[in-house]
């Protein structure tokens, strides 16, 4: 059992050792400085935007929940709401 684990770990290390650089990004090896900088900028931009959206949503939700908790609600029976004239639930 232990031998199997060591073998798997050794295989993982061997595979990691064999890995080489893959130039999948057309901008990373660009001779143009402006192009490389644009790649870095857009990478940062695309990383930050979803985090900001999630953070902003959580912040807004917390604010809204607090505001709703601060506004006290009054429990009203359904029958009272039904025949309340112009304030009727069905209107």
């Amino acid at each position, binding site marked *: 059992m232990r031998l199997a684990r060591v073998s798997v770990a050794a295989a993982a290390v061997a595979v990691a050792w064999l890995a080489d650089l893959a130039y999948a990004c057309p*901008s990373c090896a*660009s001779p*143009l400085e*402006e*192009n490389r*900088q*644009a*790649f870095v*900028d*857009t990478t940062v*931009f*695309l990383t930050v*935007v*979803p985090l900001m*959206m999630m953070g902003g*949503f959580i912040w807004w*939700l917390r604010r*809204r*929940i607090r505001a*709703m*908790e601060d506004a*006290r*609600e*009054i*429990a*009203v*029976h*359904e029958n009272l709401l039904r025949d309340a004239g112009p304030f009727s639930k069905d209107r």
Partner: protein
Amino acid sequence: MPDDALGRAFGVPARREPVLPNGVLGMLLFVATEVMFFSGLISAFVIGKSNAVGGWPPPGQPRLPVEETALNTAALLASGVALYFANRAFKNGSPNTKRLLLLAIALGGFFVVFQGAEWVALIGEGLTLTSGQLGGFFYLLVGTHAVHVAAGFIILLYTYSKLSHDDLDRFTFWPAQVFWYFVVGVWPILYWQVYL
């Protein structure tokens, strides 16, 4: 919780408003995917622009109408402001809601028509989807946004129709606003990147 305690005391459940209505949550999720979609398009454009041989805009290509589009940008931003005040009027039950919503729709319509006229002029000058990198990116970015404006325009018309029939509630109005604010908010970024 005081309201729950009150409800228990009278033997009735407290009526609670949802923190976030389903329609708004759905629209927010949709807009979040749209934000990432536009972010991807803008990033591709920025990298393409920085890789252009001979500078940007590419030589020999028609110039984009910067000043005219600035006016159109102002119209779209004004549409967003009009919608904001329409919502305030709606909350207060003011009769101005209809007028303000109609103004927002008219300004949105103006934006679409103006952009259509701009496209006709640019195509006439030789800027097409296949004329080069500028044309390809321009019609992709601005065209995608135009599709969203057209969709938002239809949503606002639907909202106005409901308001005219006294059938509009805030759970319908709110998601429509979220979408329109997104359409209005993303345009200045596109204008800055593509036109300036």
